[in-house]
C-alpha cells in the first residue's frame, strides 16, 4: 500500500505540471494571436508580403484541388444544361440577331466617334491589355469576399488593378505573390468603387456589405434612380479605368439602393485582370476613406 502511494505521488505531480504547462501555453498563444492582430493593423505591408508568400507556397496544392472541383461542377452543369438546350438555342438565335443589329450601330458610332475626336484633337485613354487567370481558391466564410487566382507578379499583375469576368467588374487585386494573387470582390464589406449611373451620369460609390448585392452610397437625395439602370466605373480616384460595366440597379428603397452584379460572383472560373497602365497606388491603400478625397 505504502509503495503504491509513493509511486502515485510523482505521477500526480507530473499531471499537475502538465496542466500548468498547458494553461501557460494556452495563455501564451492567446497573447500571440492578439499581438499578431495588432501587428497586422500596424504593419499591413509586412503581413501582406507574408500572405503573398504563403499563397505562393500553397498555389500548387490549391490548383490541384480546384481542378477536380471544377470538373465535378462542370459535369453537374452539363446535365442541367442538356435539358434546356433547345430553349437556350432559340433564345441565343434571337439574341444573336439582335446583337448583329447592335454591331452595325456600334461600327457606325465608332467611325463617327473617331472622326469627331480627330476634329477635337482628343487624347484617348491608353489601350488596355488583359491578363487571364484561373480562380483556384474561394475562401469561405461570412465576413470576407475574396478569391485567389493562379497568376501573379510574373504575369504582370500589380496591386490595385481592376479585375473583370465575362462582361462585368469583379473586384481589384489586393495582394500579389510571384505566381498567385488575391482579388477583393466588389461585394466585400471593405470594397468601395467610384461609379456612375450610365444614363444620368450621376456619381456614386458602390459599397459591398458581404451580401450578394452591393449598395450605392452618396447619391444626392434628388437623383433619379430606377431599377434596371446600368452602373459603370467612373474612373474617379484614378484607380480604375472609366466605363467598365459593373451591374444594374436591382432595388431602389427608401434607405438603400442595391446593385445586381453582371457576373455571378460565386461561379467565376476565370478572370481577366485589366492592365491600363494607370498610375496606381494613389488611393489604393485606403479603401474606406480614399475614394472620398
Amino acid at each position, binding site marked *: 500500500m505504502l509503495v503504491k502511494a509513493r509511486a502515485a505521488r510523482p505521477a500526480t505531480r507530473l499531471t499537475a505540471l502538465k496542466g500548468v504547462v*498547458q494553461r501557460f*501555453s*494556452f495563455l501564451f*498563444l*492567446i497573447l*500571440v*494571436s*492578439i*499581438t*499578431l*492582430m495588432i*501587428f*497586422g*493593423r500596424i504593419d499591413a505591408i509586412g*503581413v501582406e508580403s*507574408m*500572405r503573398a508568400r*504563403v*499563397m505562393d507556397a*500553397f498555389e500548387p*496544392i*490549391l490548383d490541384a*484541388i*480546384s481542378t477536380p*472541383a*471544377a470538373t465535378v*461542377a*462542370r459535369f453537374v*452543369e452539363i446535365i442541367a444544361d442538356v435539358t434546356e438546350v433547345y430553349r437556350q438555342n432559340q433564345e441565343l438565335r434571337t439574341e444573336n440577331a439582335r446583337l448583329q443589329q447592335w454591331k452595325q450601330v456600334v461600327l457606325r458610332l465608332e467611325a463617327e466617334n473617331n472622326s469627331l475626336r480627330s476634329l477635337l484633337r482628343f487624347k484617348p485613354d491608353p489601350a488596355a491589355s488583359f491578363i487571364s487567370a484561373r*480562380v*483556384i*481558391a*474561394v*475562401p*469561405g*466564410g*461570412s*465576413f*470576407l*469576399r*475574396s*478569391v*485567389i487566382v493562379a497568376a501573379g507578379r510574373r504575369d504582370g499583375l500589380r496591386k490595385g488593378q481592376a479585375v473583370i469576368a465575362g462582361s462585368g467588374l469583379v473586384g481589384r487585386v489586393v*495582394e500579389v505573390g510571384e505566381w498567385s494573387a*488575391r482579388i*477583393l470582390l466588389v461585394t466585400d*464589406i*471593405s470594397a468601395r468603387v467610384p461609379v456612375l449611373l450610365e444614363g444620368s451620369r450621376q456619381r456614386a460609390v458602390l459599397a459591398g*456589405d*458581404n*451580401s*450578394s448585392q452591393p449598395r450605392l452610397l452618396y447619391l444626392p437625395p434628388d437623383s433619379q434612380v430606377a431599377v434596371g439602370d446600368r452602373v459603370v466605373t467612373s474612373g474617379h480616384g484614378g484607380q480604375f479605368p472609366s466605363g467598365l460595366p459593373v451591374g444594374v440597379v436591382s432595388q431602389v428603397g427608401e434607405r438603400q439602393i442595391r446593385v445586381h452584379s453582371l457576373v*455571378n460572383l*460565386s*461561379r467565376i*472560373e476565370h478572370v481577366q485582370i485589366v492592365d491600363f497602365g494607370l498610375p496606381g497606388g494613389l488611393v489604393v491603400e485606403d479603401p474606406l476613406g480614399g475614394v472620398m478625397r
Partner: protein
Amino acid sequence: MIGGPLHKLDVAGRSLAPTAMTVMLLLVNLAPSHMTGYERVAPSFALMSIYYWTIHRPDLLPMSVVFVIGLLQDLLGGGPLGLNALVLIMVQWTVLSQRGFFLSSTFPMLWLGFVVVVAGAAFVLWLAASIASFELVAIDAPVIQGLLTLALFPLMAWLLILAHRAFLHQI
C-alpha cells in the same frame, strides 16, 4: 520489428494523421464550388476535425499545431492575421476542459457539444468582423454557415472515425 527504426517512422507518420487531415480539410474548404452563394455559408471542415481530434487524440493535435493551422487559415483566407488562430485555440481549450465528459458521453451529446463550439466560434468571428467594420454586420450568413457545419458534422465524424481506425488503432 517493434521498436525498430522503420516502426518508429511508421508511428511518427501515423501520428501526423490528425494534423494532415485538418490541413487537408482546410484546403478543400478553399476549393471553388461553383455553387451560387455557397462560399458565404461554406461549413468549416477544419473546425469539425479539430473538435473530433481534441476529444479523441489531443496528444496528436497539440495546441501549437492548432495555432499554426489557424494562422494558415488567416493567411490563405484573407482575414485579420491571428483571428482564426485565436478562435481555434479557444475552441480547443474549451473542449479540453470538458474532455472527460465528452469521452464518456454518447454521440448526440457530442453533437450537442459541437453546437456550443460552433455558436461560440461564430460569435467571436462576428464580433471581430463587426469591430473591424465599425458596424454590426449581418448575421444571416454566419447563422446558415453554423447550421450547415452542424448538419454535416455526423458525416464528417464518421469519416474521421474511419480514418482514426485506419491510421491510429494501434498507437
